[in-house]
């Protein structure tokens, strides 16, 4: 049914009309915002309008806009419930329209992504937005500079009040070291998992209790001063990787439709995609269509037991890794064990509180995604492995040939890498490799393919880029990487890379392998002094 073109056309037309109304709607929001401080009824109208928007935007693919509208609606509701309105929150609300507009653009760009193949090399949308709440100016500017060189968009939050907007950021870094800092007791850190972006904490104290406090606030990283910035960047990247690949997918297998509906509600509220099966005959079919990352399974159903169904799932090699969690009223530990021995990974005992359900599912899903990602990718950098990047290159070259579009390939090699390993140790060498891979990943576009080709060698495939585009892009990355300061055992040092670029222009297809040409150009770059780019086309570099 989703392939029905007539339906698609109708939905697209409705979506277009919704989009038109959206502009008016945002204008109305602006008007209401302007009246907030003077007219008490404006707040109520604002809440109602935000509520509508929260409900409709997601249906039409404006997911982020809808989510933020929902947060603003909740803020407005809190104000309506409060005896004394909070001036700071009102001020924040009065920019509701202004907060939503950029999201509209972002959602639109995201929707248009598949058509953006030839959009050149600048891709503002790719930049992740990191918020810093750091008092110390030196540290803040140093961090801004480093993260900026990795391609992040960095905003320094002026005060803890600005934490209201934390959910709109992609990551948050806060410094809890000023004496008497009570930042971590801010209500924003008391939310359920999944509501806050990845949080990294900087502290001047390296004690168990300061780490514990960080964990309790939901931190995914903890750093003491002086901060190792490339290491921090790596942790930041890891925080994102568990969020990549869209919302988690959870399948509920339960014959109690009432309970299922409730679980579904709790999970979808936290942004998890949920599907349900009440008829076990449809289970495998549903698994293949939905590809769940976690299965929640009732232990006792009328015709089958949970462990039986779990074993049926496990008969299929595709599903060996998917965690199966039983939902059960069974509190007898022995019987729980015997169920787990047959198949399955965990138990949640009914009655299940919303937060237990959410936490268990979230933890399992996160873990499952990390494991399956780790298996498919290079363990050090998280990039495609040698064979996979070659395959991607062939695919892109074929595609380019068919569509008469250019494609470029860059072969990148870290200079004097052996010296880094010899002087500072292999762990430090690994950090350098990771830093470069993260920088490339951040700076390249979503459509670009990036792989670790060998020890310190990377390959980037850039569809839609001609030789000049590729050169310009790589040159800016080369400069940024060269400016990056590494530290090891109290010593500071810099690294560089050389790169060879080859391109196939739309109208002049060379038969020779792109990769071989890039490799030759790389060799020339190395020969002529390193820390530079060479092209295979004889153009002076």
């Amino acid at each position: 049914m989703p392939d029905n073109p007539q339906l698609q056309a109708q939905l697209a037309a409705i979506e277009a009309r919704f989009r038109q109304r959206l502009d008016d709607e945002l204008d109305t929001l602006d008007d209401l915002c302007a009246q907030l401080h003077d007219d008490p009824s404006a707040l109520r109208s604002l809440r109602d309008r935000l509520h509508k928007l929260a409900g409709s935007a997601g249906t039409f693919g404006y997911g982020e806009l809808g989510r933020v509208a929902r947060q603003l609606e909740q803020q407005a509701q809190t104000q309506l419930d409060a005896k004394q309105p909070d001036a700071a929150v009102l001020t924040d609300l009065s920019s509701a329209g202004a907060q939503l507009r950029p999201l509209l653009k972002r959602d639109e760009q995201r929707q248009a992504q598949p058509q953006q193949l030839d959009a050149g090399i600048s891709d503002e949308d790719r930049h992740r937005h990191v918020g810093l709440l750091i008092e110390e100016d030196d540290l803040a500017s140093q961090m801004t500079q480093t993260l900026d060189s990795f391609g992040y968009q960095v905003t320094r939050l002026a005060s803890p009040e600005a934490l209201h907007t934390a959910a709109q950021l992609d990551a948050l870094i806060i410094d809890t070291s000023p004496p008497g800092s009570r930042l971590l007791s801010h209500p924003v850190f008391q939310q359920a998992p999944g509501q806050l972006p990845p949080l990294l904490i900087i502290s001047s104290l390296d004690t168990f209790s300061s780490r514990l406090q960080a964990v309790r606030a939901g931190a995914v990283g903890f750093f003491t001063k002086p901060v190792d910035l490339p290491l921090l960047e790596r942790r930041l990247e890891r925080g994102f990787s568990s969020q990549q690949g869209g919302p988690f997918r959870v399948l509920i297998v339960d014959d109690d439709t009432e309970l299922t509906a409730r679980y579904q509600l709790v999970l979808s509220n936290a942004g998890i995609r949920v599907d349900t099966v009440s008829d076990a005959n449809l289970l495998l079919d549903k698994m293949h269509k939905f590809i769940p990352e976690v299965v929640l399974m009732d232990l006792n159903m009328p015709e089958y037991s949970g462990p039986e169904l779990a074993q049926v799932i496990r008969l299929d090699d595709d599903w060996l890794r998917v965690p199966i969690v039983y939902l059960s009223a069974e509190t007898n530990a022995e019987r729980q064990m015997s169920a787990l021995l047959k198949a399955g990974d965990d138990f949640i005992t009914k009655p299940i509180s919303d937060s237990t359900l959410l936490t268990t599912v979230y933890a399992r899903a996160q873990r499952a995604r990390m494991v399956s990602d780790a298996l498919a990718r290079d363990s050090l950098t998280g990039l495609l492995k040698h064979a996979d990047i070659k395959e991607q290159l062939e695919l892109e070259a074929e595609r380019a040939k068919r569509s008469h579009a250019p494609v470029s390939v860059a072969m990148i090699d870290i200079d004097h890498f052996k010296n880094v390993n010899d002087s500072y140790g292999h762990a430090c060498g690994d950090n350098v490799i990771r830093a470069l891979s993260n920088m490339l990943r951040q700076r390249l576009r979503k459509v670009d393919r990036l792989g670790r080709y060998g020890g310190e060698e990377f390959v980037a495939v850039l569809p839609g880029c001609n030789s000049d585009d590729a050169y310009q892009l790589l040159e800016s990355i080369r400069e940024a990487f060269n400016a990056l300061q590494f530290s090891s055992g109290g010593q500071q040092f810099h690294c560089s890379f050389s790169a060879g670029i080859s391109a196939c222009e739309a109208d002049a297809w060379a038969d020779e392998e792109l990769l071989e040409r890039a490799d030759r150009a790389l060799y020339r770059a190395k020969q002529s002094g390193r820390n530079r780019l060479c092209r295979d086309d004889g153009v002076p570099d």
Partner: protein
Amino acid sequence: MTALERIMHIEDDPSIQEVARVALEVVGGFTVRSCDSGAAGVAAADSFAPQLVLLDVMMPGMDGPQTLTELRKLPVMEGVPVIFMTAKAQTQEVTAYRALGAAGVIIKPFDPMTLSEQIRAIWEQQHA
């Protein structure tokens, strides 16, 4: 079990009204009557004789729960399941809607492709 054919959708947001209509008519094959207010829904119930009502919770004028109360006074609505649609999705609210006699709750934003499936599941559950 009688097959579900006629659905009344009460919703003041024209975009949602439109997309739900297409979703229910084209994907689900239902006959849909859209009403843009609780009052309009109550007025149209007799002639349309819905088998199921999809009802927005937050509407100006008569809101969802008030509309439900009015609908329940009509003989034509006897035994007709009413499903609330809402962007508010706290568990306690859902429990409250159920206490009002709602057969189910559908959360906005919804996926037009699976809306009919969700409604059919609630219908089947009502008639199981």
